[in-house]
């Protein structure tokens, strides 16, 4: 009698073991062509919508449930491409991945860059349009923020005017005294070269290449997490080889993007 009961117990244990191993086998097999750097995560929120493309305009075609395993493949802007079981792959909003866990149960975060995180060191890239002493100008800047207050920038501008065209290439240091303000002012000091080409149709003169000192002030405002508008006034002081040095005033309107 006793041995019969123990037999039943061991049979039940065996069945349980089989069932549990069966459910373990149901977890998704990694696809054949999965890149090596794909990350396996487990969904910790009730559900995650999977879209066909990286944008809100694309339809949701699948939903990953709580406890489901997903592979993170790559990211584009604020979206991550995931691979789910049954060979489904699509795109998930990063904000929907706030609660996902790694293989050791640790919380996994996909970073969302944000200009308001002023203490983080980061690069920013910007385009601008402006007025360079009466000439229309366009510019590009590549900057790096070292501290909440201090950044450095590489700046290139081309201006096309009625009488002459100019190109400027500068290195500048920017100081933002109040980086957390919504409308944050900054001061700028820099140096570089200024190449002036007089228009050939007016007078036949040679190109001039002068060293320029740059001072300026401006204001930045953040329109979205990674997009900031800026307006700037800059004074270029050209150290010319002529009798007098030349001063150029430049106004600029542009935008910066957090890289």
């Amino acid at each position, binding site marked *: 009698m006793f041995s019969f009961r123990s037999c039943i117990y061991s049979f039940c244990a065996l069945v349980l073991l089989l069932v549990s191993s069966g459910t373990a086998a149901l977890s998704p097999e990694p696809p054949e062509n999965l890149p090596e750097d794909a990350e396996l995560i487990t969904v910790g929120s009730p559900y995650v919508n999977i879209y*066909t493309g990286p944008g809100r305009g694309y339809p949701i075609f699948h939903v990953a449930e709580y406890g489901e395993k997903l592979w993170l493949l790559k990211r584009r802007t604020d979206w991550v491409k995931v691979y789910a079981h049954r060979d489904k792959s699509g795109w998930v909003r990063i904000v929907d991945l706030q609660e996902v866990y790694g293989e050791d149960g640790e919380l996994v975060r996909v970073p969302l860059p944000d200009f308001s995180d002023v203490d983080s060191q980061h690069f920013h890239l910007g385009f601008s349009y402006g007025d360079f002493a009466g000439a229309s100008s366009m510019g590009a800047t590549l900057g790096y923020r070292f501290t909440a207050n201090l950044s450095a920038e590489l700046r290139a501008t081309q201006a096309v005017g009625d009488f002459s065209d100019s190109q400027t290439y500068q290195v500048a240091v920017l100081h933002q005294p109040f980086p957390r303000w919504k409308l944050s002012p900054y001061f700028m000091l820099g140096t570089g070269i200024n190449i002036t080409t007089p228009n050939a149709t007016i007078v036949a003169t040679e190109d001039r290449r002068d060293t320029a000192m740059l001072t300026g002030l401006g204001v930045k405002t953040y329109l979205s997490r990674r*997009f900031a508008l800026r307006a700037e006034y800059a004074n270029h002081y050209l150290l010319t080889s002529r009798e007098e040095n030349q001063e150029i005033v430049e106004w600029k309107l542009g935008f910066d993007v957090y890289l």
Partner: protein
Amino acid sequence: MEARIRRLPLTVAALLFAAGASAQGDDVLGDIISPDLERREIREAQIDSENIEFTTFGGVINVEDFGSNSLYGGALAYHINEDVFMEAAYGETELGESSFERLSGSAPLLTDEQRELSYYNLSLGWNLFPGEYFIFDDFALNSSLYLIGGVGNTSFADEEHFTYNFGVGARVLANDWLALRLDFRDHVFEHEIFGEVQRTNNLSAQLGVSFFF
């Protein structure tokens, strides 16, 4: 009254007990309610970002007075978010004969070298209508229709011309990293090759292939 007297020793005992308990030290309570939580470990996902799009394109550009000519070039775009991207583009074409040159039969206005036109621009694009294009009943391609505009420089006839460009385009994605783009742009600049300042609208249509990396 009797009940009150009977309750007195109880109250005293309760007070004494309470005092004793608090005197016994906080460590007992501390042991009971001390947070025994493991600090949650947080890790950043190490996944690759693909926000840069490289495009090579070819098409037709009509430069006012100089006819329609073939155009080719390239562009590098950075996708800021799902709605907005910034793009730097470069293009080249060779100008044909102007109607003035053809009709008057006089010496050509520009040398061959001066007829080589190149432009570059910095633009901001807005993915206005993201969605899907259905090719068959159950086969759709992700796509977006975008508006784009910016400023740049057009260089020909030994002159630089400040140029505004704006237009519309469609991007159809074959897969995650390969797309087909069709762009229509207007390049607006002023020149004075014919003696007086003239604002020109120069339309281009171009088809491109782009790669995301």
